[in-house]
């Protein structure tokens, strides 16, 4: 966490999730793990793309340090969003973690084929959810060295 905070910017995380229950759980989990995380929420795939492309109301949206992407989304599915991100020259360097309820081998394999950076199963309990939030913070937002934002186009 310090690695990113070093340049004085807050950590930006985009959560693409349509279930408000899961949104709140994720917020609570991150708040417990690291209060300086800015969690942005897109409730479907189309909004996620608009956020990432800074379209419409998202014109001032920050570039996220990490994307948490649910697979089961209305309008535009998580897989399509993932494919879009990984085909886009400016977006593909953003680490994208799948956060899904599905334990199906086909979903997991397909996600990695589409260049997901990791695949996480949504925990069934709060304790596990809190622990996952902490793990994400400790690894992706702390240990992992991410590309400099200024170098991104």
């Amino acid at each position, binding site marked *: 966490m310090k690695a990113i905070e070093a340049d004085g910017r807050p950590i930006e995380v985009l959560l693409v999730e349509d*279930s408000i*229950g*899961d949104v709140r*759980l994720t917020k*609570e989990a991150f708040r417990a793990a690291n209060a300086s995380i800015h969690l942005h929420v897109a409730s479907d795939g189309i909004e996620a793309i608009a956020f990432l492309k800074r379209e419409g109301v998202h014109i001032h949206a920050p570039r996220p340090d990490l994307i948490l992407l649910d697979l089961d989304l209305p309008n535009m599915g998580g897989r399509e969003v993932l494919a879009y991100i990984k085909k886009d020259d400016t977006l593909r360097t953003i680490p994208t973690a799948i956060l899904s*309820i599905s334990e199906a081998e086909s979903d997991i394999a397909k996600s990695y084929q589409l260049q997901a950076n990791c695949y996480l199963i*949504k*925990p*069934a*309990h*709060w*304790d596990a*959810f*809190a622990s996952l939030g902490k793990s994400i913070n400790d690894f992706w937002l702390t240990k992992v060295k991410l590309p400099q934002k200024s170098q991104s186009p």
Partner: protein
Amino acid sequence: MITRELSESKESDAKYRGLLEAAPDAMVVVNQGGEIVLLNVQAEKQFGYRRDELVGQKVKNIIPEGFAERLIADGTRSAAEALAQHIGTGLELIGRRKDGGEFPIEIMLSPLESTEGVLVTAAIRNISVRKAAERHLAQMEGRYRGLLEAAPDAMVVVNQAGEIVLLNVQAEKQFGYRRDELVGQKVKNIIPEGFAERLIADALRSAEDALAQQIGTGIELTGRRKDGSGFPIEIMLSPLESAEGVLVTAAIRNITKRKKAEANLLQKVEELNRSNEELEQFAYIASHDLQEPLRMVASYTQLLSRRYKGQLDSDADEFIAFAVDGASRMQRLIQDLLAYSRTGTNAKHLFETSSEEALQQALVNLRGAIEESHAVVTHDPLPTVLADEMQLVQLFQNLVGNAVKYQNPGIPRIHISAARNGGNKWIFSIKDNGLGIDSQYFDRIFGMFQRLHKREEFAGTGVGLAICKKIVERHGGSISVESQPGHGSTFHFALEGSERES
């Protein structure tokens, strides 16, 4: 007088006599007065008289009826006419021997011009053997006819030309014709296709071949009634040797009901399969979709309890604890229900699998529980079987897991062994020294959600053994238990061995 006149032409008489004696039949020459003037040795033998006892006697003495009358009638006609009428036409009459015994004869008459007018030569053949044969045949036919009528099916006898020669009353009823409307008709009229063609094929083979091939093999065809309506039939053919060549007897069964029943059964099976599939699909989807909202309930009640424990009153803490417990229990139930329905819906992949390796994997998965209870798990060398490896691991895991779990205070001792059952099956046994099970529950424990203990005593959803049963049955085997309360349990299940010796 006749004798004298005949003797006048001794030369021709001698020739004629020679011919007479050479004839294979009894020969008698009779004059217009019905008196015997000449006979041969066969006639003597046939009728049991000496020659001199017959010459000059009335022919009525040896052929009581039908012959003398004809002679008189013939006397009124010219010899040429009589000849023309009688040549080649055998008359069937009765002959009478000297001893009074009678026998059937066939006589052939031919006129013989002589100086005393027209004489009649009668060739007399004893036809008692032929008559007996005919009677026998008639009897057989009568019997066959009787059999035909007694048959529960419609029966039709057909000749090689495809014409109906005989049928029974059931055939009349079945096809809606009167008997005389069918006899002589083509069988194609009542069985449009498949039968007549077969007759032709059969004609090329011997009756034995045909019999051997057709016996017991029903051919399903369509019958047509007089009113034109069709109905499904099954026919069984058998050849029948007869004087007119090989006939074919066809037993014709109306299988409308059977066809309907078959179609009905098929439909029911399809419906059952469909509803089974739907049910499994339903169980899967329901349990899968129920997980989502339940995850919210479980997560938020837990979050409540973590964040607000001790900040509300003690009642609130207790209520929240119940909610947390209920939600997580329901999660386990749904997880197990999902596992159960997955056991049924996944495709079967049976490969040669080392059951010993599967057991080892199960023991690794159970390591926590085994260490905690200090259980001692031993096993014999285990065979290679045809199995889905994942499911076999699950099976061992559930059975050994239960053996570890349902224990008296003390050290659980569990032993796994396998023995051949004569054939290619292996009977696996998982024996424990645990609580044991009352025999009244032996069937129930393999049912869905069946539990024998309070939750406070032993946690669990009651799905484990139901999954075991489903796994074993999907492998074509069966599972059972032997147990006595207080004396441990032994679970047995059978699996197909691999071709290769293990």
